[in-house]
């Protein structure tokens, strides 16, 4: 009896140990389908937004049909995407295609994490004149490599509430890329007339969208904007640049025509305020359009170019994807990216109404289709008026230093110049990577 009991206990323990070991091995080892490749005839794809139900899903399905490849879309992660991306690359099992924050492209390229697509471009003799030039060249590195792939871009324009303009008797902004009657002075004058403190209604909102840093400084005559062309110097503390940022800050601190910084700290609050008629003009990206289309039913809204000063340019956010160097199916990944940037792929992506496809022929089809904004075509025309941000080895690191520091200027506690001069050495240390 004792012997039987001992035997069963041994067997039990042996089984338990075996199961534990097997579990740990399975956990540590991973497997192909979960972590990396999508098999011989397929590839894996990771985006930080939900793909299902979006035009991107349709475009991927169209690619699958055309190529016979299978694309496995991995679950979307909106929070901590950058952390997941770094972990996947560091762990050596990244997806074949993944979205990448444009601020990371230079740094990741220098660290050798991204596959150079130049050999594929050359091999396929791809006609690059079909793409919007400034954004197509965004991922081009100093050594000539092309380490990421832009599918589209989201230019920034002024979104405005047509009804509020009409009620205040203010002339509407231009409907073309023109600064006639649409200079910084005109913009500020209009903002004053559109502000009504009793209703907590503000005429303008410029400084919340961080793309204003590059746009407004370049438009004020800055040669470089935020960083020097080689990405080694922080040029935002220059005289022209400080003047531009102080002008935008003074819309709150002096003119009182812009919401105070303190009320803008909640997520998406600016879009909600605009949709509630509490902001008359807002500097924002193309990506705002889908939200406003769904939220604004009661009044008319439209878009206009940014007001002109020395220049009249705007900055785009770019929709960038990459093929990690350790991707298991780089050829299939390239085929997918090539398709998504083609005229066919671009036309499908255009239906999302959130960004301009990089393919010029596809972008030309951008039209209101009976929906606001009436002058949506200005987003496509923005391709001719782009100011390109300079890539650096550590753009995120630099931004995490100077942007929080600027809070004290936006709070009207300190002048912009003082803040930027004080933070400059730290930012330039960060730019070294």
């Amino acid at each position: 009896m004792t012997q039987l009991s001992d035997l069963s206990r041994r067997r039990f323990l042996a089984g338990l140990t075996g199961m534990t070991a097997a579990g740990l091995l399975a956990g540590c080892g991973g497997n192909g389908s979960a972590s990396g490749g999508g098999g011989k005839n397929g590839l894996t794809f990771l985006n930080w937004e939900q793909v299902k139900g979006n035009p991107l899903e349709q475009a991927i399905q169209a690619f699958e049909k055309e190529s016979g490849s299978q694309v496995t879309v991995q679950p979307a992660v909106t929070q901590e995407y950058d952390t997941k991306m770094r972990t996947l690359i560091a762990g050596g099992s990244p997806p074949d295609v993944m979205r990448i924050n444009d601020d990371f492209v230079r740094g990741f390229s220098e660290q050798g994490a991204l596959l150079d697509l130049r050999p594929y471009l050359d091999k396929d003799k791809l006609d690059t004149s079909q793409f919007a030039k400034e954004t197509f060249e965004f991922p081009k590195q100093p050594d000539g490599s092309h380490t990421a792939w832009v599918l589209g871009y989201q230019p920034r324009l002024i979104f405005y509430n047509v009804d509020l303009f009409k009620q205040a008797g203010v002339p509407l902004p231009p409907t073309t890329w023109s600064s006639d009657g649409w200079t910084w002075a005109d913009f500020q004058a209009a903002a004053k007339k559109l502000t009504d403190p009793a209703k907590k209604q503000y005429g303008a909102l410029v400084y919340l969208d961080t793309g204003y840093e590059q746009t407004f400084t370049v438009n004020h005559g800055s040669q470089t904007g935020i960083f020097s062309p080689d990405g080694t110097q922080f040029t935002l503390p220059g005289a022209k640049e400080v003047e531009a940022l102080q002008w935008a800050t003074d819309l709150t601190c002096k003119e009182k025509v812009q919401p105070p910084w303190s009320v803008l700290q909640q997520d998406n609050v600016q879009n909600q305020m605009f949709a509630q008629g509490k902001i008359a003009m807002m500097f924002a990206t193309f990506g705002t359009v889908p939200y406003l289309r769904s939220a604004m039913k009661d009044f008319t809204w439209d878009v206009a170019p940014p007001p002109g000063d020395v220049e009249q340019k705007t900055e785009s956010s770019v929709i960038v994807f990459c093929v990690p160097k350790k991707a298991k199916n780089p050829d299939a990944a390239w085929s997918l990216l090539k398709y998504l940037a083609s005229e066919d792929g671009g036309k499908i992506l255009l239906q999302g109404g959130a960004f301009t496809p990089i393919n010029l022929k596809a972008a030309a089809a951008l039209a209101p289709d009976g929906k606001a904004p009436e002058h949506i075509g200005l987003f496509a025309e923005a391709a001719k008026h782009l100011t390109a941000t300079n890539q650096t080895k550590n753009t995120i690191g630099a931004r995490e230093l100077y942007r929080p520091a600027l809070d004290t200027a936006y709070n009207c506690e300190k002048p912009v110049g003082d803040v930027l001069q004080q933070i400059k050495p730290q930012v330039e240390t960060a730019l070294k990577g």
Partner: protein
Amino acid sequence: MATITMARDRGTVQVADVRRARRRQNLTGWLFISPIVIGVVAFQFFPILVSMVASLTDWNGIAAPKFVGLRNFTSMFTDDPLFLQTFRNTVYFTLASIPLTIGIGLVLALLCARPIRGVAFFRTAYFAPYVTNVVAIGFVWFWFFQPDNGVINGLLQQVGIGGPQWVSSSSWAMPAVIMVSVWQGIGYPMIILLAGLQGLPNELFESGKLDGAGAWQRLRFITLPLLTPHFLFLLITQFISTFQVFGLIYVMTKGGPGHATSVYIYNIYQNAFSYGKVGYASAMSWVLFVVIAAVTYLQWKLQKRWVFYT
């Protein structure tokens, strides 16, 4: 002679059996705890070891790490002004929140120790925030502290006071976070001290009463000295947890405005996951470990001077 030999042999056999049984027992024990041991080694000791090695490299999480010796440790003091600023912010947070949390916790414990009606409800109510998700708490209080349409400033306006900008002001953001932290944390010291109060010997209080000691004197000379072991425990645990504050900061202020609420752990997080400076972040973690270990050791050593054991 033969009998003696047999007895010796039997004895040898018995000892060997006992040894075998002990070995089997030990093996059984080890096999039962092996899943936990493997887990601790794989997911705690191994990462600790890796972070120790990483702290001596320039590892960015992507490219191969390069050995840099103690450079990460020296550059904290020479190249990174945020290191000292976030350290100062953490000390400020700790020094402000610990006395408040333990002090208010003591008052609540004294009140909740009294045999009054509904005391169970109050004990639960005060303890509830402690077990509530920090993200939910952060979001709710972030709304309460809104300068223009927040509840706090709304209430202050009712009594004719113009409230500050709270989380949007570089001088008020940290006090706002401290207030929330204290509100969330008082349940823990309250429960610990309540348990301590209920275990105090009654005869001391009765003797005190007979000797003419009033309520304040009994609190001052009997209750508080007897609670000193609990205070020591709270000081040590609260110091360790407040020095590692992260969740509230991340949700309420993201370290702003202007790095006014950026604390040490938040700085580590940003270095590791925003800037990809894994080696540097590991070095910062080890500095934090040393600081916490040193202060805890000091607290333990100094207890002889003020902790009273019955």
